[in-house]
């Protein structure tokens, strides 16, 4: 019961935050200096007052700002994000087209970041202040300091252009056609088609952009794992376990790591949200047809309905991930639920 109450509270909070974010986006759009009528209508249509009036009436632009806000919220509740100025398609369908590519890349990157981040963090904490620790810390600081656009160019230059061991931009090689969309994840869809070489090619295309995206989050996970493990290792129950004569490896894996990884969960959650933001650069450089590339092209062409759509989608993702992390946190760590 207590657990359900906790989850319910988090969900109500999520709805309130979503409402707030949508309002914030509305305010941002009202600060835009350009006039949506001039941006959307052609020169000829602009000369005809009837068309302009009809357009304004259609989108409620002739109404006071409060009424416009109500219209905006009503449209959002109907999942109507308007039409992209650049492509003339519904923003929602554009986002639906781009979204799976982004999520496929993000999931791959977060798996990489989590595996290596925790591994490095544990090694670093066990060998505290040794030369290994210093090297791991240097790697993790490097991860958070690498400008991802530069790192992307570097890996492309070495692994694709010079050594030619990994494929470059795009989701699939020229020899393959895109698989039938089921999940939108090329690796899974290719497997569903039973086409193993295509699935492997899609996987190989994930490696370079995935590594670039993972670098920053991996650095954060390494640092958090290390400092939390160090904290846990100085607690009384670990001293007791050590006094019982447990080996260091057993001590860490069976007793310390479980508690040390709780805060790491938050970092992974936040990292996943940040990955979605970092997509703009990586997708642009790797010509990955996802939400980030769509956002970049929309910003360059002042396509405000699309920019708003991307902002809302990513904020929604971010908040859902945070809520899931909060709920998981409550389930794993009873202290959180009680407080």
């Amino acid at each position: 019961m207590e657990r359900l109450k906790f989850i319910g509270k988090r969900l109500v909070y999520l709805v309130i935050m979503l409402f707030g974010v949508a309002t914030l986006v509305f305010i941002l759009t009202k600060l835009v200096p350009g006039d949506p009528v001039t941006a959307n209508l052609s020169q000829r249509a602009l000369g005809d007052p009837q068309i302009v009036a009809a357009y304004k009436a259609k989108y409620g632009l002739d109404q006071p700002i409060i009424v416009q806000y109500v219209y905006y919220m009503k449209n959002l509740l109907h999942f109507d994000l308007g039409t992209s100025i650049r492509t003339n398609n519904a923003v929602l369908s554009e986002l639906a087209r781009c979204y799976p590519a982004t999520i496929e890349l993000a999931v791959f990157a977060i798996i990489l970041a989590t595996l290596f981040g925790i591994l490095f963090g544990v090694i670093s904490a066990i060998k505290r202040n040794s030369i290994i620790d210093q090297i791991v810390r240097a790697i993790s600081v490097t991860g958070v300091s690498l400008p991802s656009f530069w790192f992307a160019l570097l890996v492309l230059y070495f692994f694709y252009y010079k050594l030619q061991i990994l494929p470059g931009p795009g989701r699939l090689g020229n020899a393959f056609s895109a698989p039938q969309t089921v999940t939108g994840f090329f690796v899974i869809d290719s497997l569903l088609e039973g086409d193993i070489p295509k699935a492997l090619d899609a996987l190989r295309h994930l490696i370079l952009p995935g590594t670039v995206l993972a670098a920053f989050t991996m650095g954060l996970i390494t640092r958090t794992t290390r400092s939390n493990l160090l904290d846990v290792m100085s607690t009384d129950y670990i001293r007791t376990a050590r006094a019982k004569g447990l080996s260091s490896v057993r001590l860490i894996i069976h007793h310390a790591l479980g508690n040390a990884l709780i805060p790491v969960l938050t970092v992974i959650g936040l990292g996943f949200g940040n990955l979605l933001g970092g997509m703009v650069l990586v997708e642009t450089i790797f010509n990955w047809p996802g939400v980030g590339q769509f956002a970049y092209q929309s910003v360059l062409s002042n396509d405000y309905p699309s920019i708003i759509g991307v902002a809302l989608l990513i904020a929604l993702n971010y908040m859902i991930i945070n809520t899931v992390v909060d709920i998981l946190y409550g389930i794993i760590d009873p202290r959180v639920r009680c407080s």
Partner: protein
Amino acid sequence: MLHSLKKMFKSNYLFTFGVIICLFWIIMAIIAPMVAPYDPVVQDLTLRLKAPSAAHIFGTDNFGRDIFSRVIYGGRYSLLAGCLTVVIAGCIGTIYGAIAGYVGGAVDNIMMRLSEMILSFPSLILAMIINAVMGSNLFNTMFALVIVAWPSYARVMRSVVLSVRENEYVTASEALGASRFRILLKEIIPNSITSVLIMATTDIGNQILMFSTLSFLGLGSAPPTPEWGMMVSDGVQYFNKFWVAGFPGLAIFTMAVGANFIGDGLRDLLDPKLRKQF
């Protein structure tokens, strides 16, 4: 404090290394006109895309400009943007967080939800939108960075203030009849500022990265300003001429690494929890 700092210079090599790198870039930025062999914006199309040589140690870009000179001058913009953003965002966040934490109740709730709304946007996309709305120049880019950065400071400050306000010296001040404003300014903020300072040092590297990212995306200062991020983006078209994007990128990287090493070291020094021995 000074003693521990000295000790750290001796024992924490990464910190010392960070200080050396950052000092190097700061000095370079100050004495740029003396060190740079060429004018960073003068073009010479006869020297287009020349590989590194004795005359141009970092080579030249697609307009025949000397990349070494441009990298040296570029430090000015990145350092200025990184430091100013942190200072301004830090100040706004500190005051905002202190008020929210000290006043508490409904005010705290509303203020914090507002900052969380900004935090729930991915920072890069929010900065891109603000920059696109306001137009791209150095000032607007920094403005966008500040808008995105301050809520994190506010959150940290608030959480510290929540515990500091329970201290006896705050109660004593209240009993003596000090105004809320005075207590906030004289008792609360000075006693809570350490965490914000730790965060600020680690954040300078982040802000330098964010700034160069925005200028890489064409949302920073206008050409021909020698800005590191913009220089890397120039190099994207000349993929096989590694020096065009390579050296400015290396500059951003070393600057960010330096700032992060210093931030890490200072956090170890100022945060007593991390000083515990394993």
